[in-house]
Structures are given as C-alpha cells and as structure tokens.
C-alpha cells in the first residue's frame, strides 16, 4: 500500500477496522497499479505528500506495521511446510512411477477378475514414491529451519528518523510507509522511497534493470525532462527496494514497503534469477539420460518377451516392472538430502547457506579470491598515528580528521569509527560545539575521499577533506611545510610519498588530511570545490590480520584451493599483511596495469599472480570472470560495498556478518563467526556432499546399464521370465531403502583433498566400464539355476526366480561398498555405520524373504542349502572382477568418483 493511501486511511478513517485495511493492502498489490502509483507519486509536490520532517511516532509506526505487514518480500521467504512437502514429491521420476502405479492399478485391480486382484505392485510403487518424497522433505525442512534460525541473526538495518526516538538503526523489516530514512553509500534501499534531499546520490539499480552503471538520483529533478514512456526505474526522484547506494547520501520518505514495492511486484522474475550451475545442469542431464534409457529399454523388453514367451500381458507387466527398476526414483532425494545435510552441518558452524547448491560449489572451488580489509584482517581498525607532513605527531591533524569523521553522514567506515574513538579519548568531542556543519561532499570509490564544510562561531568557513593519499595529492596545491603554508612542489610530494611508504611498510593504512579556508559563501558544495587545498598531514591506522587467517590459508592450500588477494588497498600494506598471514607473494599486479590488459593477456596474468592491489570493484569482478573462463571454480570472500559485484560474479560468494548490507545480500554464504577456519570446513563439507551425490549417480547409472544386459539376455534366451514383476518391484524397493543411507556416508580423506567438479563424461565412461560387470554374474546365476539346480521349465521358474532374486539384490547392495571408494572396500576403506548397517540388513532381509510366508505369497520359494556356497562364490568373483576393472579404470583415468 502506498503512502498517500496509507496517510488518508490513517488520518481520516481511523474508525475502519484493521481487517478492512489489510484487505485494502492486499488489493493494492497489482504490479501495474504499483507502477502507476510510483509514477504519480514522483510527480506529487513534496508538500502534498503529508509527511512529517521529524518522522513518524513509534506508536504510529507500530500501527502501520500491523496493517501493512513487515517489509519483506513473500517470495524470499521459505515456503510453508505443506508446500515444501508437496514440492518434495514433484519430480520427473515420481511422475513416471505414479503413472506406472496407475497402469498397475488398472491392470491388476480394475481389469483383473475379483479373485485375481493384486494390490502388491501398486503398494510397492507408492511406498517407493513416499519413501523418496518423505526423506527429501525431512532433510530440506530441517535445513530450511536451521537456515531461518541463522538468518534471523543476520540483520540488515536501515537508518530511520522517528519523532520520539530520533535517528536510529532499525531492522529493514520494520520500516513502514511514511517513515523518513537516511541513506548513505553501502546501504540497501529498504523500500520504495521518494528523495527529500540528496547529496551526490548514486544508486545501482542492476538488481532491477540489469544496468551495471550507477544512476544519479536527485531531490528536486526536472521531471519535465523525464521521457513520457520511460521506465519507472528512470524516475530521478524515486529509489527502489532491492537497489543500493553506491555513493552519496540522501534523506528519503518511504512510499511503499514489502510486496507493495516495485521490487515486490517483480519478485517472481527477479528472485532466484541466478542461472543453473554446471552441477544443476549435470544432474538434470543424467536424470534425463536415465529416463531415456528406460523409455528405449521398456518397449524392447516388452516385444522380446512377448515374442519369445507368447504371454503378452505378462510381458507387459514385466516391462512395466523393468521401467520401475530403471527409474532412479531416489535421485532427487539423494541430491537434495545431501545438499540439505551439508547446509545443516554448516549451520552448526554458524554459517548461513543462502543458496543450497552453493554447498557443492564450495567443494568444487579451486580458487578463493579474498578482499583484505575486514575479511583477512580484523574489523577492529585502530588509529595509531596522527602526523604532520614531516612525520611528527600533530594534534591539529587529528582534530581536523575528527571533525571530518564526526560531521560526515555518508559511508559508515571503520576508519571513521576509529578516528572518533581515538578523538573522544583525546577529548575532542567538546570541539564539536564550536562548529556547525554547512554541507558535505560524501565519499565515493572513484574519488576515495570525503569532505565536510564547517563554520565556526566567528562565521569562518573551512572545507576539511580526508582520503586516500594519491587522490588527496591530486586536489592539494599547498602544504603545511615547516610551519608555513607553501606551494606543494614535486619535492614535497616526493617527501610525502616517501613518508607514506615508510608508514605502509609498518603495515599502516594511511589517510591524508587537508583543509582550505578560502571557500565560497554558498551553502551547497560539490566535488568541484575539492581543489587548491592545503595538505596538513596524515593519520595512520593499524588493521591487524585475524588470528585464524594464516591457519585458514594454509588449510585451504592443503585442500587444493589457491588463495588470491583482490584489494582496493595499496600494494605495500597488502604485502605486509600477506607476510603476516604467511602468504607467499608470487607477483603483485596493480589495478591500473589490469586496465590496459586485454582479456587474453589477463587470462595468463591471473594464473601467475596471487595479489592484486588498488583494484576498483569492476576490476575485481573482471578478474573473477577471467579466472572462471580459465576453467576455475571461483569463490570470493568480501565484506564491502566495493565487493558486491565480485560476490555476485563468483561461483560462491562468501561474506561475513559485519559486512555492509549489499555485500550480505549478494553473498551465497554468510559466516557469522570471525574464525576463517570455517572456510576449510565448508570446502570439506562441499566435497563430501559432492562425493556422496556422485556415488549415487555412478552407482545408479552403471547398475541400470548392467541391468539392461541382464534383462535382455534373459528375455532372449530363457523360456520363462527371470523374475516376476512383483519380485522386481520388491527387490527395487529394498535396494532403494539401502540407498537412503548414502547422504550419511563418509568419504576417503584423499578424495577430500582435491577440488571436485562436475564431469559429465566421467559418469558415462564409469557406466560403460562398471555396468556390465554385474551382468556377467547375473548371466552366470541364470546358468547356475538353469543347469545346476535344474530350474529349466516354467513349472520350476519359482526356484529360478528365487535364486536370481537373492543374487541380484545382494550384488546390487554390495556394489554400494565397491563403488564408494577407489580403495579395497572393507579392508582399506569402510563405509559409515548407517551404510554398513542398512546394507547388511537389506542383504539379510533379501536372503530370508524366499523362506518366509511373504516370499511364498509373491511366488518365491526356499532355496536349497547348496545354493549358498555358489552364491558366496558368485559374489566373491563379482567383487574381484569389479576390483580389477576399478583398478584398470583408475590407472587409465587417474580418477574414480
């Protein structure tokens, strides 16, 4: 609901009950209406907007919150449990299985004679679908719950002015229409707002428009210049939820919140816009490969059995059961349960996983690019020095820096916090009474400096500027040199640079301070006024590295992840930090060098360089793109506004809890704890997740491929079906149950040491190599039952089928242990307890079934005791041949899972 409607309702129709108002809010959510309203409001004169300069009263805001609801987008919230449950069941495999269940129901129940009705097939297929859906739901629900709990700890806030409490930070979700908010660089725009006053305000609207260049917004634009058919985002006096301030500052009036915003109306198309990763695409391609496999195989099996056995109905039912057997119905469960399990275990380490598939990307990551300040270093910057040009301690320099930090309202910078803290300790807080702020020129990443214009009690005005040394030298023409103001000559500049270099070598981040008194009597100042300034001196900050930084970098290197530093800071400070965290310096490249390089040149340079300094946000993003085009999976760890484009570009964007809003919003993963060791744990968790998913995929693809041979050979050469449809279904259900434990399996330590990436070709070749092994022993079992045990007539088919039922189930269950490791199973590498117990239980159940009443009811019969030594020999030979083929596979491809 927009502000004008809200104001009218609250001011004139207070008698209306809350429910009616809520209904009105719901009715106003039409996207077209929202756009029209925004156009209309942009043209309304400010005084007609009925707002209070001092903001809303907290009580009034509370009332509005109860009517308009929290300032959140519905599509960003997790679905309610029942929707999650339904979604857990919707996948192509379950659709196929339910279709088969319906066919079985028609054939076995509806069309069957009353005394021949059989519900078993329908029940078994439905159980498979239920098992896969429920297990997936439980894991995803747990993962969503823990993510929600952690997300509640990550607070994105906005600065609001309220009548009774003044200017303060509140959670974005509590913003209501009519609130007055303050915006500065790094802020997410919390709602749709109309600008009331602004100062060099530039906003990035890329989330809404895709346009990467920031656009300028004004409080008093000439709307006549706005094109008639322009987009709502082109309105120069309106800012929109989902966009962010890149530079400048503003005061704004909240017009619409939550789903009533322009972003809310577009949320369906914007949220979840991220393209599929190679992993997502790969899993889909394997799914469709297996479905195609099934659709080709089933008609062939049906026709061959129909022709050779003459019973077309039985052949049809058998073909249906083969279809069920070839459907990897557990695939969505295993993939999602694995990812969700990874997210749950990360949440135990206080890490929020915003995008589930980023867990897998974490494991695939082989290059981690990281910003320096606030990520590798502690976010406790301390002011260490305040010096004049010659390097002597100078309180005047500190006082000017203090006034600049005190009066600026732009970017909430850690350095300003450090200046204010130090200044307060020195008693400078009393100085602020002597000055009045006239104007400010906010910080931006191009100028890398900020200014305030102050006036003292005598009416004397002064422009005080502080910022990066190079940028400050560019706007200074004088310097306070040996007690006098003298022209800033090349010699003095060189002296300054030398002093700064020495401070940098001590690990200090240096900011220059300058002032000028000769300024116009105007009340509005801009970047053009930052000229002909007098350089006063410097302030130096220490930004010590995090205690865990060196440990984390060493651990990442051990796990095959190369760490590269991408910083906006200068190379000397960066070098010092690198030394402290034990990072070898291969080569340092500066931002200006990159600017002149083509992508082809940069592709070579990025491989040989591990430190990039003086980078702009765009250059950080470009380096990531180039690394990706070189075939790397790239992670980016950053916390600043200048890191946001890189965080979005990276395969895994990682941020920290103390980061600016836009960085947290752009990240896939947010670390809530300061320790960087969680990065290593994330990498290991990602690789475990990936490994367990690959196990299932390779197992299923190869065993389905092998089954194709076994079924074709049986169909072509046996005078009866090798197994009744119901046997195939029971066997498949038991096999499915054994596979539900895969997400809880462990991986060999060697597997975890190397980055793991999706490789579609490896699944295909694995299928071709390992698949036929089981078929060999299926066929030898056919021969054993047919010739040794004499089950060679249709009357004796039950004995034959019982023999293959056990061998088939046991070999399929054993393959879990054979394929889960390149080592010798049970001896060199053992599965986790859940896998061991569940597979052993399923094998035990499989052996017992033919001896039970249930076995008899589905047409199985007890096997003679002399069958079991043959079975043991078959399984032993199967393991042996698999191990031989495995060894050959590893020798050839130097890879297994």
């Amino acid at each position, binding site marked *: 609901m927009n502000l004008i409607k809200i104001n009218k309702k609250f001011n004139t129709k207070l008698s209306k009950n809350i429910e009616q108002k809520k209904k009105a809010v719901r009715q106003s959510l039409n996207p077209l209406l929202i756009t029209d309203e925004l156009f209309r409001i942009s043209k309304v004169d400010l005084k007609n907007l009925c707002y209070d300069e001092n903001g809303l009263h907290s009580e009034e805001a509370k009332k509005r919150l109860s009517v308009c609801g929290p300032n959140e987008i519905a599509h960003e919230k997790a679905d309610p449990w029942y929707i999650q449950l339904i979604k857990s069941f919707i996948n192509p495999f379950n659709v196929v299985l339910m279709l088969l269940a319906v066919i079985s129901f028609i054939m076995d129940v509806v069309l069957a004679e009353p005394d021949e009705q059989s519900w078993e097939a329908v029940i078994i297929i439905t159980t498979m679908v239920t098992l896969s859906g429920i297990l997936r739901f439980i894991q995803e629900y747990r993962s969503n719950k823990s993510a929600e709990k952690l997300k509640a700890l990550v607070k994105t806030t906005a600065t609001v002015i309220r009548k009774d409490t003044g200017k303060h930070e509140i959670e974005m979700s509590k913003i209501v229409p009519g609130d007055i908010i303050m915006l500065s660089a790094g802020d997410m725009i919390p709602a749709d707002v109309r600008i009331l006053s602004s100062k060099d305000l530039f906003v990035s609207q890329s989330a809404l428009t895709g346009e990467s260049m920031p656009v300028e917004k004004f409080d008093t634009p000439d709307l006549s210049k706005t094109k008639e058919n322009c987009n709502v985002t082109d309105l120069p006096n309106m800012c929109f939820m989902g966009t962010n301030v890149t530079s400048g500052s503003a005061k704004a009036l909240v017009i619409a919140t939550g789903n009533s915003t322009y972003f809310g109306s577009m949320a369906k198309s914007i949220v979840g816009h991220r393209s599929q990763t190679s992993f997502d695409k790969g899993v889909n391609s394997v799914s469709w490969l297996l479905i195609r496999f099934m659709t080709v195989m089933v008609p062939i099996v049906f026709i061959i059995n129909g022709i050779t056995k003459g019973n077309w109905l039985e052949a049809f039912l058998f073909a249906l059961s083969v279809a069920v057997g070839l459907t990897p119905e557990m695939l969505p469960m295993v993939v999602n349960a694995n990812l969700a399990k990874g997210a749950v275990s990360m949440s135990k380490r206080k890490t929020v996983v915003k995008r589930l598939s980023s867990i897998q990307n974490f494991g695939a990551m082989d290059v981690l690019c990281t910003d320096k300040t606030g990520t590798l270093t502690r976010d406790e910057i301390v002011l260490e020095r305040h010096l004049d040009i010659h390097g002597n301690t100078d309180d005047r320099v500190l006082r000017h820096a203090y006034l600049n930090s005190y009066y600026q309202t732009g970017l909430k910078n850690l350095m300003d916090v450090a200046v204010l803290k130090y200044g307060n300790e020195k008693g400078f807080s009393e100085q602020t009474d002597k000055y009045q702020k006239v104007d400010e020129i906010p910080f931006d990443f191009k100028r890398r400096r900020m200014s305030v214009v102050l006036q003292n009690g005598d009416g004397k005005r002064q422009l005080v500027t502080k910022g990066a040394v190079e940028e400050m030298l560019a706007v200074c023409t004088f310097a306070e040199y040996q007690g006098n103001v003298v022209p800033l000559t090349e010699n003095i500049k060189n002296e300054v640079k030398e002093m700064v270099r020495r401070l940098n070598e001590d690990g200090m981040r240096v900011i220059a301070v300058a002032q000028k008194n000769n300024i116009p009597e105007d009340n509005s100042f801009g970047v053009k006024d930052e000229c002909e300034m007098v350089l006063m001196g410097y302030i130096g900050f220490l930004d010590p590295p995090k205690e865990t930084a060196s440990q984390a970098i060493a651990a990442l290197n051990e796990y095959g992840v190369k760490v590269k530093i991408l910083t906006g800071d200068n190379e000397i400070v960066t070098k010092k930090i690198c030394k402290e965290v034990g990072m070898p310096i291969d080569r340092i490249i500066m931002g200006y060098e990159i600017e002149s390089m083509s992508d082809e040149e940069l592709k070579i340079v990025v491989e040989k360089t591990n430190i990039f300094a003086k980078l702009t946000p765009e250059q950080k993003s470009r380096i990531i793109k180039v690394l990706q085009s070189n075939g790397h999976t790239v992670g980016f760890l950053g916390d600043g506004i200048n890191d946001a484009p890189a965080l979005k570009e990276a395969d895994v964007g990682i941020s920290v809890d103390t980061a600016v809003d836009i960085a947290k919003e752009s990240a896939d993963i947010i670390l809530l704890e300061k320790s960087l060791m969680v990065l290593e744990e994330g990498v290991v968790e990602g690789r475990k997740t990936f490994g367990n998913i690959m196990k299932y995929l390779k197992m299923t693809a190869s065993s389905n491929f092998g089954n194709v*041979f076994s079924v074709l*050979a049986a169909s*072509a*050469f*046996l*005078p009866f079906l090798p197994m009744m449809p119901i046997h195939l279904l029971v066997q498949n259900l038991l096999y499915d149950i054994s596979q539900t434990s895969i997400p809880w399996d462990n991986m060999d330590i060697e597997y975890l040491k190397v980055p793991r990436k999706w490789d579609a070709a490896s699944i295909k070749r694995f299928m071709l*190599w390992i698949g*036929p*092994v089981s*078929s*060999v022993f299926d*066929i*030898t079992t*056919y*021969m054993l039952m*047919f*010739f040794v045990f004499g089950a*060679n007539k249709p009357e004796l088919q039950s004995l034959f089928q019982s023999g293959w039922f056990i061998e088939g189930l046991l070999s399929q269950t054993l393959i879990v242990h054979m394929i889960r490791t390149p080592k010798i199973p049970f001896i060199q590498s053992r599965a986790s307890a859940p896998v061991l117990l569940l597979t052993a239980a399923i094998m035990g159940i499989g052996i017992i079934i033919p001896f039970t009443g249930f076995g008899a009811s589905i047409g199985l019969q007890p096997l003679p005791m002399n069958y079991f030594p043959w079975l043991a020999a078959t399984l032993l030979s199967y393991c042996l*041949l698999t191990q*031989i*083929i495995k060894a*050959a*596979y590893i*020798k*050839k491809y130097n890879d297994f899972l």
Partner: protein
Amino acid sequence: MENAKTFIGLATTAYIMIVCLISIWPGVIAESKGRSFKPWYIAGIICFPMALLGSLLLRDLKKDTFN
C-alpha cells in the same frame, strides 16, 4: 535342444562380456607405456592371452622419452 539353445545363448553372452571387460587390461597397460589404448583393447578381444603378454612385454616409451 531347447536347453542347448539357452546354454549357447547365455554362455556366449557371458563370454563376450567377460572378454570385453578383461581386455581393458592389455589396453590400459599398453597406454601406460605410451601406446594407444584402442588397438590393444581390440587385440585383447581377439586373443586376450596374447594381447596381455604382448602388452606386458612392450617397451615403455614414456621411460625412453624421460631418459
């Protein structure tokens, strides 16, 4: 007669599959010595014992290159 057909069919299928599988070894050994996988794999299918022996006796081209 019916049983003989079944025997021949199943035994032939099993034999072909086993040969196709184990012939991978001469191919892999030859490849590890710098030869092409495919010809040695096919040789294994035609006459496995000879191909295996041949691959084992092959001179290691990779070693020669390093020397």
